[in-house]
Every structure is written in structure tokens, then in C-alpha cells.
């Protein structure tokens, strides 16, 4: 793919309890339809371990989006809180190591209708487009 045509590849972890209405689900599914971007639905954002995030970076995704619920509205009580603790720590550490700000987006959704999923996805990809293709942690041969 030439530099002009390059489109960032997005990996989105989306909690089942965020964006769950039929129309919202359709939006989420649509993001993955282009064949390049991927959506992984998880029962709770607490399922997203640092291993998954690191692995995603190594596989060369240019933008990573994680959507979970606010801590107070987590369906599994502690899952979101734990995810926030783990992943905010990890992301700050990754930034210290050289992962650019704007590669990884963590979004904790309130139960009230707010930002549609495709806006989140578009913003994540726009930020990655500005940064250029991911290089940190990417293993050649994995793309």
C-alpha cells in the first residue's frame, strides 16, 4: 500500500454492555466490515488484559480503542474498575516507553446515550492517521 493510500488499522475491544441496542450493535459490526479493522466484543472490559493490548501492538494495529462502562455501572461490579486501574497504568507506561500518545484510546461509557460508536472509531483512526503507521513494538512479518 503506498503512503498516499495508507489507512490506519483499528482494533476495538468493546464491552458487551456498552453499545448493546440493536442499532448500536449494527454500528459496531459495521466498523469491522471493511476487513481491515477488527472488533472484539468482550463480556466486560475487565477481560482485556495487558497481554491482549501488547499483542495487538505487536501485530501492528495502528489504533487501539477500548470501550468499557463507567466503574459505577459495570455489570460485573468490579470489572471496569479493575480494567481502568490496569490499563491506565499500562498505557502510561507504554507512553513512557515510546508508544505515541493517541495510539491507544480508553473510553468508559456512561449508561446515558452519548457518543456513537462510529464517532469513537473515527476519532481513534484520525489520531492514528496523524501519527502514521505504528512502528513501536510492531514485529516485522506480522502485518
Amino acid at each position: 500500500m503506498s503512503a498516499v493510500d495508507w489507512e490506519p488499522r483499528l482494533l476495538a475491544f468493546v464491552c458487551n454492555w456498552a453499545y448493546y441496542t440493536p442499532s448500536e450493535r449494527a454500528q459496531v459490526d459495521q466498523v469491522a466490515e471493511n476487513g481491515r479493522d477488527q472488533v472484539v466484543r468482550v463480556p466486560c472490559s475487565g477481560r482485556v488484559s495487558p497481554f491482549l493490548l501488547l499483542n495487538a501492538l505487536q501485530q501492528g494495529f495502528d489504533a487501539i480503542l477500548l470501550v468499557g462502562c463507567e466503574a459505577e455501572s459495570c455489570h460485573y461490579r468490579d470489572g471496569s474498575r479493575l480494567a481502568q486501574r490496569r490499563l491506565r497504568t499500562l498505557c502510561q507506561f507504554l507512553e513512557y516507553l515510546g508508544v505515541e500518545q493517541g495510539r491507544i484510546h480508553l473510553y468508559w461509557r456512561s449508561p446515558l446515550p452519548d457518543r456513537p460508536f462510529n464517532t469513537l472509531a473515527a476519532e481513534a483512526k484520525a489520531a492514528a492517521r496523524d501519527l502514521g503507521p505504528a512502528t513501536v513494538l510492531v514485529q516485522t512479518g506480522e502485518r
Partner: protein
Amino acid sequence: MNEATQRLCALASELLSSGRVDVVLGFERGSLPLRSRPLHARTPTEAGRLVLDGFSESNLARFLCNLAGQRVGIVARGCEARSLTVLLQEHQIEREQVIIIAVPCVGIIDRRRIEAETPATVLAAAEVEDEILLRTHTDEIRLPRQEYLCRACQACDAPAPQGDFTLGEPLAHTPNCNLADGAGAQSPAERWAAFATETARCIRCYACREACPLCYCPECFVDHSQPHWAPGGVEPKGVQFWHIIRAYHQAGRCARCGACERACPMGISLVHLTDKLNHIVEDLFGPGTGLELDAQARGVAKEEQG
């Protein structure tokens, strides 16, 4: 043998012969210059071999998890005391199991730096007051001790713990360097290059993990095979995954003792990674993440102030 060492040997001997402990964990002279090594003293005779010096590179708290069921007297400098605090908080040891013999620490000498800077073979080394004396085939070299301390020791702010027994005067140390320094000024690409280059030397011996008192998991994540997150071997994928996650697992727990980087045969700098994570955790979730000696670790029965 100096006075402090004599007091330690006498105390250890007494604890063993009175049956208060099954083993005293300390250091003895090593078989090489600039090295002192861990000693499990189980008799008064063995206790006579204990030393207190700046060549003791290991963190003794690492051996506690192997001594379950035994009563242990542990010589505790700042390193050991800070690790002990976390081990107690994480219920890896029982307070009643350990007798803490607190000793003030004047820092561990960076032997790798000395060996790198001394072209001739060092045949013998000694600490004399504030100097390190080295003997080679042809020379006697004197080095200012303060300038040859390990990086972790230079950054240490808690070298003198309290314990069930406290030998020596309390002393304070003002950190004269910041372990995670310098990274703020660099671009992300520079920071990544620094990390990738530094860790590229890794030979996956796991000396860093094994030297650390807080790496006590029965199954380490690198040994987990379904799925196999961190490939073994020396290709960057596995090496980077290993170092990032190992540091990450120390977040808020690391005692900043530096035993990891002293154990590394390839001289890889590691403490700045976990130190940064400690700061991140403190920023995000507040202080009190286990690095202060709390009342629990101070010892219930404070006896002889040596």
C-alpha cells in the same frame, strides 16, 4: 572484623543457639573480589561468617518464600525491608515467621563499573572508610566509595529500616539521582529506541526475575503456553513482551533495590522501568503503595537498639 559485624555475628549466634530462629539469612564473603554472597547460617559457627559490606548485591528477602515453615532471622537493609513490607502485605510470609535484624546501609558498590573501568585484573578489594581499595598485579587503586555506588543506591531514600533488632545508628540518605530521569526530554521514537536497544542484549536467563523477592509466582506468565503470550528466545517480540510485562507486574510493588539489574549478566538497566511504574501508580491512585515501612513491618517486639 569491625564492630558492627561483630555485633551482627553475636546476635545471629544468640538467636540460633537459643532456638529463636532456625536460620539467619545474611551475607558472607564471596569467592571472588568485590563479591559477597547470601548465607543461610544455621549454626553459631556459620553465623561467624556473616559480613556487612558494600559487596552484598542480592536482596535477601528473595529467599524467604523458600523457607516456609522455618523461623528466619533476616539481615535487613533498606532493600530487604521494603521488599518485606510488600511480602507481608501480599500474605506471602507471616510476620511471626521473621525476626528482622535491621542494619543501616551505606550503599552497594557497583562492581561492574569498577571492572569496566579497571583494565587490569582486580585480585582483591576492600572497603576502608570512605574508599574502596583495589589490588591488581602491579597496583593499588583507591576509589571514592560514594562515587561508585549502584544507581539504585544513589536514588535510595530509605536505607535504614527499623526491625525487631536494629543494629547501628539510623542514617538518612538524600537521593542524588532520579532513576527514571531524562526520558521526559526525549521523543517517543528516541525513548523506544533506548528501550529496544537496551533490552536487545537480553539472553532470557531470567536472573532478573529470580533475583527479585516479589517475583514469586509459581507459574510465570512466560511459561504459560496456552496461549503462548511471550515467545521464548531472543527475538525482539518475546524479549520486549517479557521486559514490559515483568516491569508492569511490579507496578506499585517494586522496592527499587536494583537486585534485578545487578543479577543481569548482560548489564541491562532495569530499575528505571519499575521505578517509573511506581510513580505512575502513585500519580494515578495516591501514595501508600507499600514502599513505606508501616507499623506491621517495624516489629512488634522491639528489643535491643544496637
